[in-house]
């Protein structure tokens, strides 16, 4: 069977296809079909000839096989220094081999490549910072994900996720109506406690256009309310777009570059339509990476920048604290030891490490850095889509060990994790390893400690 009904080389761009995939519990049929999927070796080689250019080929060719990338990789460390987890090995045995064989690889090989690209690498790019030649194996395995996706070898959840982006312009099935309703509902729900609270939709020329992760309206709508309250307290003139509100990109995790483009263009269109001064995105690492860092390239924006200047939530919080828009009640600062999880996507790969330290200086009395930290921090263990892939749950749980040990070494029981993936990974880490920690996003933490001027409080009857 060259192509499966569910597992094939087609993109998911209709609700019928999407529903068929969703109905296949845990992707049982999907993965069974994958074992029979043909590899279109000609198309694979044609793609390589066109897109695997001097940068990637040089990386593959000049790798000195020195092994200095080994200890940079948390998968290598978490798997008792298994040599097969050395980043250089992972890329040489996949992309290197495909090129050597001029694309003539079989189904077994492609499934091994898929396992490598998704369960042995979360594209955290830490190895790139340890290679003397600057070989970025995270970038290369991201590229390999694209090759796999085009051939139909992609984990079930990510095939669904990329389809969601194509159909809903969001990683989940949330329509424009659902989204706007959620905004209205949250504003009403919290209006009593916060007189004058609004979630303005589609307001033109606002100072800030705020964009989110679809999980928030879907599963944690109070996150949206918390964002609104903090903007309200800070006196920001802000808005959310009715369309183009989703910043995440499971398409990026899937290697579906076509869907990546569709997704970020929906956000850029909202910027063009509403003409805000700047954009702020919620506490999500890969959302920022996708829409702000990589997105302009997918969309072909030659400046390499988003249509309006874009900020991660940590940048906004740091600025609000610095300028006094938000003031922390000194009595409510965190007294216990607390540590901070640097998200690879906006720290190592976007340079926002300083913002985190600035925020912690306002809110914590006993802030303890993980070692290593900042640009050299380890991935939480669930990045790159790994948190969401059932097939690789065991590999993910093993990978969490490095973060577990880092947190334990700080002695902190509280972890601030302003990134959805990190937050999930740390929650799961506690569930699996039970080390007695708590974790939080910035918003609920800040709400518990900001000073609220009298006129923001409800009037007593």
């Amino acid at each position, binding site marked *: 069977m060259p192509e499966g009904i569910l597992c094939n080389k087609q993109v998911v761009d209709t609700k019928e296809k999407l529903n068929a995939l969703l109905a296949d519990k845990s992707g049982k049929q999907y993965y069974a079909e994958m074992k029979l999927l043909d590899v279109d070796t000609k198309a694979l080689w044609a793609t390589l000839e066109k*897109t695997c*250019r*001097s*940068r990637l*080929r*040089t*990386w593959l*060719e*000049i*790798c*000195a*096989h*020195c*092994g*200095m990338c*080994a*200890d*940079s990789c948390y998968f*290598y460390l978490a798997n008792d*220094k298994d*040599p*097969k987890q*050395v980043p*250089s*090995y992972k890329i*040489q045995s996949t992309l290197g081999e495909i090129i050597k064989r001029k694309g003539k690889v079989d189904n077994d090989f492609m499934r091994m490549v898929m396992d490598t690209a998704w369960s042995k690498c979360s594209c955290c790019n830490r190895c*790139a*910072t*340890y*290679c*003397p*030649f*600057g*070989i*970025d194996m995270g970038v290369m395995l991201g590229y390999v994900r694209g090759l796999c996706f085009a051939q139909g070898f992609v984990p079930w959840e990510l095939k669904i996720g990329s389809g969601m982006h194509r159909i809903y312009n969001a990683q989940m099935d949330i329509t424009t109506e659902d989204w706007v309703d959620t905004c209205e509902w949250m504003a009403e729900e919290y209006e009593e406690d916060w007189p004058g609270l609004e979630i303005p939709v589609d307001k033109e020329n606002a100072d800030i256009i705020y964009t989110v992760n679809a999980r928030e309206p879907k599963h944690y709508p109070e996150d949206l309310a918390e964002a609104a309250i903090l903007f309200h307290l800070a006196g920001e003139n802000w808005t959310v777009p009715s369309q183009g509100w989703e910043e995440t990109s499971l398409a990026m995790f899937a290697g579906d570059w076509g869907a990546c483009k569709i997704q970020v263009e929906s956000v850029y269109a909202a910027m063009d339509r509403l003409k805000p001064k700047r954009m702020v995105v919620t506490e999500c690492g890969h959302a920022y990476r996708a829409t702000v*860092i*990589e997105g302009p*390239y997918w969309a*072909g924006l*030659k*400046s*390499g920048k988003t249509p309006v200047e874009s900020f991660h939530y940590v940048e906004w919080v740091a600025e609000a604290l610095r300028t006094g828009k938000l003031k922390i009640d000194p009595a409510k600062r965190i007294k216990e030891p607390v540590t901070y999880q640097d998200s690879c996507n906006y720290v*190592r*790969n*976007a*340079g*926002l*490490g*300083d913002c985190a330290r600035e925020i912690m200086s306002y809110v914590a009395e006993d802030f303890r850095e993980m070692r*290593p930290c*900042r*640009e*050299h921090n380890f991935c939480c263990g669930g990045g790159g889509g790994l948190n969401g892939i059932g097939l690789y749950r065991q590999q993910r749980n093993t990978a969490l060990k490095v973060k577990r040990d880092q947190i334990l070494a700080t002695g902190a029981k509280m972890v601030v994790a302003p990134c959805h993936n990190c937050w999930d990974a740390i929650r799961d880490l506690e569930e699996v390893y039970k080390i007695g920690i708590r974790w939080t996003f910035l918003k609920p933490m800040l709400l518990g400690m900001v000073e609220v001027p009298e006129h923001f409080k409800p009037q007593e009857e």
Partner: protein
Amino acid sequence: MYEFVTGPLAWLSFGIFFIGLLYRLVWYIRGLNWQMDRVTYSVNVAYGIRGALRSIFFWLVPFGTHSWRFYPGFTILVFVFHICLLATPIFLMGHNVLLLERFGFSLPTLPEGLADVMTLAVIVAAVFIILRRIALPEVRILTKPYDFLVLAIAVAPFLTGFLAYHQVGSYDFWIVAHVLSGEIMLVAIPFTKLSHFLLFFLSRAQLGMDYGIKRGGMKNKGMAW
């Protein structure tokens, strides 16, 4: 024989060396693509240059990066090997005598004893690099016969040069072997992993531009390599 290897063959090898490297340079730069590499090479240029220079500079300094500091023993090995490998032939008395005879100019020269020590350092470092390759599982799994061949090509001129200088056995044999192995190295540089002679700088510059332009360089003080 000596006249042939130091005459026409030398010209040929230097020719291949320079033209080969020029080809690699042009091939590399022409192959870059702002959209596929996701780096705006020709926009935000100042940030790109700053990123490239930082990325090269810190990696040229012994212990200048987190990675070099993480592997102190290997770092010493790598720097001793490369510094001696590059400096010894360029500043060797014998080579500069040849330069002066044939081209009428010469460079400052190393004392002969020091040059001897540096030659030995290349050889000893290479031995340790080989032992490391065999001993460490994370390096062994990456190692291919080709890696030993490349190392042999790089070290052969030092070994033969040392034997010739100290006249171990037949000087005439070793000096011809020395010149030949040097020429093999020159020719191999553009076409093997030894191309990192040039591509180290290009690859580092590229990743540096990536960090300098896209991955935070426009918002922070620059990547802390």
